[in-house]
């Protein structure tokens, strides 16, 4: 090459400034875009964290409970059924009245009882069921406080606003203060939240039912969509002959991946519930519906992973006498597996966050019992969040945020697994 003549180099020098400036601007745009996204993410996460953090702790009230024989089993039958059905609420009320003997009026007693959760009776019932010798004894027991008392103790209900506008009245505040002074009020890690199913009492509501429901649903989804998706992709990518028919299939699979999820819910309602008469609200049906939704994602991911395996591998295998099926099963598929698994996990985490299609098949429901199998009525994490967000009780606000945190944690774990798998096993050619 000859040296550039002076006029060209002058032109270049002249334009250099503006080209550098454009370069800088472009970089700045990129940084701004990323910064904006990060700011949104931080604001979102910190607001959820700030709201939901409180739900991991729970206010408890210590009371001296008299396990009176007269209340639990007046006829001394010793029958487990009688003991299980006894009026444990009365034990709580008696203990409260013994603690605050000056409270006499019915209305006042009701206000006093409202400080302790309605679920406290289950706690006492379980204690007696575990140890029948408790009957007749007196024990100090830490009982769960009611949602309102809990909210007050956590500062979510302000003390200095007019009494009429408060869920907790002045008398109740005085009682809580008295309990606090005598050391009968404490905040503890909220085990209930991670071990129970849904409840209408916010302090009793837990996420475990939804976690089990989500797990059952995802297992069904995985069992169905993974083998189906991988087989379909292997056939389309490795074994089929390219013609109009496979092109048509390909277009349809890509379309299927873009269909709004609620459509799959409608399909589930029409086919699985109305025609096949599968049970409503069951993780089985939820799993099938989500499998249909995940299936195209897995096909697309699998095909991409198969394409990334270099043709030389296939040719070498064929050259050594392997049959087409052997080429795929012994060589191509194992090499493509990290990519396939990554795609599957990403598809599954999308299924985990899905609630719209489940609405149609009855999984948006109030379910207290923890599901025992794929045929039991169940709900899933995002649905639980939706139901709590719609509940009037103040204490459900923090439960909603806390459940969102749990869902986010699961999503992060799943996506991190996908990243690790890829890092660890992916081969680069």
């Amino acid at each position, binding site marked *: 090459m000859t040296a550039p003549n002076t006029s060209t180099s002058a032109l270049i020098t002249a334009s250099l400034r503006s080209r550098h400036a454009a370069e800088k601007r472009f970089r700045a745009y990129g940084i701004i875009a990323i910064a904006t996204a990060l700011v949104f993410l931080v604001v979102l996460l910190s607001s959820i964290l700030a709201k939901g953090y409180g739900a991991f702790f729970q206010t408890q009230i210590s009371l001296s409970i008299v396990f009176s024989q007269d209340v639990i089993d007046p006829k001394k039958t010793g029958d487990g*059924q009688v003991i299980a*059905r006894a009026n444990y609420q009365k034990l709580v009320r008696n203990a409260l009245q013994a603690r605050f003997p000056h409270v006499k009026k*019915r*209305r006042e007693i*009701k206000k006093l009882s*409202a400080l302790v959760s*309605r679920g406290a*009776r*289950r706690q006492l019932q379980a204690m007696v069921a575990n140890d029948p010798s408790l009957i007749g004894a007196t024990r100090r027991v830490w009982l769960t406080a009611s949602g309102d008392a809990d909210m007050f103790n956590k500062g979510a*209900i*302000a003390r200095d*606003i007019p009494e*009429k*506008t*408060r*869920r907790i009245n002045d008398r109740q505040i005085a009682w809580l203060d008295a309990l606090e002074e005598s050391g009968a009020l404490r905040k503890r890690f909220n085990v209930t939240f991670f071990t129970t199913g849904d*409840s*209408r*009492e916010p302090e009793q509501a837990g996420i475990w039912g939804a976690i089990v429901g989500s797990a059952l649903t995802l297992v069904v989804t995985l*069992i*169905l969509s993974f*083998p*189906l998706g991988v*087989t379909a992709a292997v056939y389309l990518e490795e074994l089929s002959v390219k013609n109009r028919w496979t092109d048509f299939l390909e277009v349809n699979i890509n379309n299927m991946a873009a269909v709004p999820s609620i459509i799959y819910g409608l399909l589930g309602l029409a086919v699985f*519930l109305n025609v*096949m*008469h*599968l*049970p*409503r*609200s069951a993780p*089985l049906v939820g799993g*099938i519906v989500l499998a249909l939704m995940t299936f195209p994602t897995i096909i697309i991911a699998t095909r991409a992973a198969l394409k990334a395996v270099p043709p030389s591998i296939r040719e070498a295998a064929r050259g050594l006498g392997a049959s087409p099926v052997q080429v795929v099963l012994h060589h191509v598929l194992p090499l493509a597996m990290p990519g396939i698994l990554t795609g599957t996990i990403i598809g599954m985490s999308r299924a985990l966050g899905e609630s719209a299609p489940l609405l149609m098949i*009855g999984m*948006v*429901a*109030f*379910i*207290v*019992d923890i599901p025992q199998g794929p*045929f039991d*009525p169940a709900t899933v994490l995002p649905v639980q969040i939706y*139901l709590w*967000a*719609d*509940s*009037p*009780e*103040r204490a459900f*606000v923090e439960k909603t945020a806390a459940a969102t945190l749990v869902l986010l944690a699961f999503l992060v774990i799943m996506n991190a697994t996908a990243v690790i798998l890829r890092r660890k096993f992916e081969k680069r050619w």
Partner: protein
Amino acid sequence: MKKTFILSATLVGFMAMPAQARDQIRIVGSSTVFPFSTAVAEEFGITTSFRTPVVESTGTGGGMKLFCAGIGTGHPDVTNASRRIKKSEVENCAKNGVTNITEVKIGFDGIVLANSLKSPRASFTLRHIFLGLAKQVPADETGARLQPNPYKKWSDIDPSLPGVKIEVLGPPPTSGTRDAFAELALEGGCKTFPGIKALKKKDKRTYRALCHSIREDGAYVEAGENDNLIVQKLESNAAAFGVFGFSFLDQNQDKVQGSLVNGVTPEFENIADGKYPVARSLYFYVKNAHVGIIPGIEAFVAEFTSDNALGEYGYLTDKGLIPLSDEDRKQQTEDAAKMAPLSMWESSLAGNLPENG
């Protein structure tokens, strides 16, 4: 291949599975009754040996559709409703063999128009609400001539109202609360114009369209079905009003205040007495053919209508349900215990059931 085998085996397994027997009550229906129904279901699960019922929130209309689809374990046993069952729904039920239904009225729900505590409490009449929110309003006192809603500020309607822009956050058309609000508040205000009232007899359809249509110029903002969200938005926007159920006002008295309607505050006692004009009855319906087949239905109805639940100091009133008067409630409890069914249903009730709408 092994995988294909497992796969086809699972699929065949699904196909061959028979409809299962059920030992758990299934409830569907109104999202307004949902919080009460679930509270009863939970209590029922704790205090009896039966399993806790599954309660789905499908909306009143959706619930009726599922409820009326047939008899058998695949269909729900109870449906909740924030309005009375319609004639068309009774007919649909009968067509599918669901002829024996018990109706139980459980109480009232007030619909409130509320704003942030940062603003002064407002006082509306039904007519103000209609003029503020309707799509078309009468141009004069008689109501003979109509014009598209010209009002921008509440004070344009009546100088006594706040001088702020009309901005109301409320439920979308799919909501039962919206239906009830249109029927009780808008139609209530609409009727105060003699010209429009006369129209009701002549042309019911035009009358309904006129009285139930909400303006679409941005003054009424559809805020979704989530009432908590409306409360949050009111907190940040002191000039706006929100439309939602009484239980949300009850739980958020430290953030919002209910406006007076026709001079009556939306308080527990006023709604129970029937003084507060924007209140509706809540019901649930039981499929009598399932009683004795699905265990625990009678016990569930008994729990729902018990003093412990529905009484003046019952746990449902804590959840914001406004109870019936004592005599009314006793009557409901008795009727429910007898599972008073169809005969009474067809003769005395079917006559006054609302038409399709």
